[in-house]
């Protein structure tokens, strides 16, 4: 990364920002912090344009709302992966001219959505009303005739826990000129109608309310309840017809979704440009831009700046700077950058181990997942996805990486003899009565788990030694030879020595004594040098804590046993699925049962163990491997570019 500073005339600002965005090479940094410096403050002011930003944000939001409506009601199929449409530079020139059409469509869509909402609310109201009226269907007094000169009809509900006879008594205690009738009842309530003399109502109503009666107010209605429900239904049918009309209108517009998407991205790019402008400083006649640029992208930017007659300067980052980080690995390894990014980017200038751990990750994944058919599924499915979809960014990295892992899974599956576990053997034996035996190309971990454990641990030691080697390389690069000897070489010596001492006897008798002396020298060295940076008693404590780190190495190495564990888990669960499936025996039902259990069981096993292999393989990198040397905390490089969501304009400026 280099720091780029540009000063130019105000007239150039627009063209510079318009063309710089196509290069996607510069991360423009906000310079307003410079204003806390008095010298800057006296001479410049920030180039804020909040009202323009608000204007374009509004446009983007409205376009998004319209697109949401299209997606929700337009009846379009949702793609499996979100990809951007590729538009050639020539086609892209016509996008601005469709602005008017797009805005019109957006307003129409938002209008239609409002209409839908109103209709939905209206339908809800009708449903609620129907629910209230329904118990009174049999009540045939027109609702506008509930009163005479002297009497009134009181409708209401009495919860089932209350006794209607008790209520009737309360009424009859006041007057004997009344009628009380139950219209209907449901599980929790009785629906009662009372005819009362008006002059007694004031006395009766509060009394029966105390007994649980809930009067129902039905004001401003005409006709009987039945008629009311009928008119509700016809209104609802009308609204629903109208709603369907709105749906089909939206569906008709959906075919022009591309125009709105183009417009969305156009506005998003304009917004991006205004936001970039917000980060500049200016005087009355000039402006100032500062940012970061990857070293290999300088030429194109220089050419642009020269053509506009800008004054500029490229500088190497200084100590106090925080340059952003852009990982750069050979093509094959870039998909694995996703794993590094998942942990945290390396700090600027520190070591990026992506290309070193890449193959380890893929191998570990394969050993853990280790079923040839699962691997084959990954290869085929992900291969098709990669071919068919125009994936970009982290999604592309992830899918490509898993594709590699699929190949590795296939290879290790074949080596360990897992083909949907032992599905082929089980099928042959259960349904065809034949015994076949698919031999693993190497060995079957379920028969010989110790060998796989040993291989896992050996791989683990190699992996850890590699990490230690990187740490050593970094120390040497900084010229710290003493540290290299004490912290790296002594550890190599100690760990190799201990392994030879304890396990060398298996290979050759002569290894054990050599190992013994190597470890003694190593441990003594660790004890003596561990506290070399400390004073007094610290020297001794430091030495002992250094030696104690042997347990750390032990747990690090044993951690690789998870390769065996996950490998066995895949195989064992697969075998159990097959055995369970075969329990139905050789019959039609048996075959159906086998197919169902086979599909569900292997789907489950695939899901559990693919996730397990993915994460545990990553863990071995993050905890065991990175733990030795990795410095994290880098900020990702985020260049000034067209952050579009739907359209990707073919960009000749970048590819050149």
């Amino acid at each position, binding site marked *: 990364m280099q720091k780029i500073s540009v000063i130019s005339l105000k007239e150039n600002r627009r063209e510079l920002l318009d063309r710089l965005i196509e290069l996607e090479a510069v991360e423009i940094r906000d310079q307003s912090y410079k204003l806390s410096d008095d010298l800057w403050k006296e001479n410049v002011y920030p180039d804020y344009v909040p009202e323009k930003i608000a204007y374009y944000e509004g446009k983007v939001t409205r376009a998004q709302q319209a697109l949401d409506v299209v997606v929700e009601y337009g009846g379009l199929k949702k793609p499996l992966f979100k990809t951007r449409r590729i538009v050639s530079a020539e086609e892209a020139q016509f996008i601005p001219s469709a602005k008017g059409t797009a805005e019109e469509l957006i307003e129409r869509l938002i209008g239609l959505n409002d209409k839908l909402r109103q209709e939905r609310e209206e339908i809800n109201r009708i449903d609620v009303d129907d629910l209230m009226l329904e118990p009174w269907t049999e009540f045939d007094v027109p609702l506008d005739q509930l009163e005479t000169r002297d009497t009134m009809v009181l409708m209401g509900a009495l919860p089932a826990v209350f006794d209607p006879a008790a209520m009737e008594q309360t009424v009859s205690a006041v007057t004997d000129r009344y009628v009380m009738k139950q219209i209907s009842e449901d599980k929790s309530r009785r629906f009662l109608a009372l005819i009362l003399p008006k002059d007694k109502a004031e006395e009766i109503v509060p009394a029966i309310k105390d007994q649980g009666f809930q009067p129902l107010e039905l004001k401003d209605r005409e006709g009987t309840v039945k008629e009311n429900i009928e008119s509700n239904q016809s209104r609802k049918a009308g609204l629903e017809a109208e709603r369907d009309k709105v749906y089909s209108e939206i569906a008709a517009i959906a075919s022009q979704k591309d125009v709105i998407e183009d417009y969305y991205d156009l506005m998003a790019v304009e917004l991006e440009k205004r936001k970039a402008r917000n980060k500049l400083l200016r005087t009355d006649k000039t402006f100032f831009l500062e940012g970061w640029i990857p070293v290999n992208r300088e030429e194109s930017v220089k050419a642009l700046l020269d053509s506009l007659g800008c004054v500029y300067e490229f500088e190497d980052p200084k100590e106090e700077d925080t340059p952003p980080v852009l990982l750069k690995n050979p093509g094959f390894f870039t998909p694995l950058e996703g794993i590094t990014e998942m942990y945290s980017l390396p700090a600027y200038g520190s070591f990026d181990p992506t290309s070193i751990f890449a193959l380890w990750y893929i191998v570990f994944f394969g050993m853990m997942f280790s079923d040839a058919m699962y691997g084959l599924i990954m290869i085929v499915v992900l291969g098709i996805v990669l071919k068919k979809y125009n994936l970009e960014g982290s999604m592309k990295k992830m899918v490509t990486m898993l594709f590699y892992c699929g190949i590795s899974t296939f290879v290790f599956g074949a080596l360990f003899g897992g083909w949907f576990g032992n599905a082929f053997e089980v099928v042959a034996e259960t349904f065809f009565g034949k015994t076949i035996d698919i031999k693993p190309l190497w060995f079957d971990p379920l028969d010989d788990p110790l060998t796989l454990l040993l291989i896992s641990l050996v791989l683990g030691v190699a992996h850890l030694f590699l990490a230690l080697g990187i740490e050593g390389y970094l120390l040497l690069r900084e010229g710290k030879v003493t540290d290299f000897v004490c912290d790296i070489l002594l550890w190599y010596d100690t760990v190799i020595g201990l392994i030879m001492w304890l396990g060398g006897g298996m290979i050759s008798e002569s290894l054990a004594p050599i190992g013994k002396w190597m470890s003694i020298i190593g441990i003594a060295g660790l004890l003596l040098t561990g506290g070399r940076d400390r004073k007094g008693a610290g020297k001794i404590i430091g030495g002992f804590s250094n030696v104690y780190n042997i347990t750390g190495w032990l747990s690090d190495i044993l951690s690789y*046993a*998870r390769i065996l*564990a996950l490998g066995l*888990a895949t195989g*064992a669960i697969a075998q*159990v699925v097959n055995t369970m499936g075969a329990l139905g025996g050789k019959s039609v039902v048996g075959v159906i049962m086998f197919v169902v259990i086979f599909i569900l069981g292997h789907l489950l096993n695939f899901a*559990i163990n693919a*996730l397990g292999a993915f994460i*545990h393989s990553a*863990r071995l990198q993050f905890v065991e491997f990175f733990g030795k040397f990795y410095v994290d905390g880098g900020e990702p490089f985020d260049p000034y570019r067209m952050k579009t969501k739907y359209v990707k304009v073919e960009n000749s400026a970048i590819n050149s």
Partner: protein
Amino acid sequence: MLTDGNGLALLGAAIAACAGCGSGMGVGIAGQAAAGVVAGDPKKFGRTLILQALPGTQGIYGVVIAFLIMVKTGFLGGAMLDLTVAQGWYYLAAGVPIGVVGFASGIGQGRAAASALQLMAKRPDQMSKGIIYTVMVETYAILAFVVSILIWLRIPA
């Protein structure tokens, strides 16, 4: 009972299946947190489901071991072998690791999943890290599962 080989072996299968208790509690804990997250944003249902399902694996491991024991002892085949008391104890020993560790790690994983759900509610882009924390807990269930399998493998039939 302690001198009946067949009974001991089935007890082993039963203990292994008890890993499901851990998963049950874990999935429950995660489910409560998931419901809270979905209350705020129903669109996250699918993603919460993934995290809620993670503590469920212990139960599966437990059932797998139980099943393996039942197959090898012939219990599922119809005619159960006549096991010696020693063999019975071996099968019991095979069931204990996943039963006990699965129980504890299922609960622990449920708690981790609940926190990961909170993380996802606040920072949906960081969900993958939440999954990593959660799956970390499973390491120990897998290790116990493997110990169970290794014991089971080496029991003389």
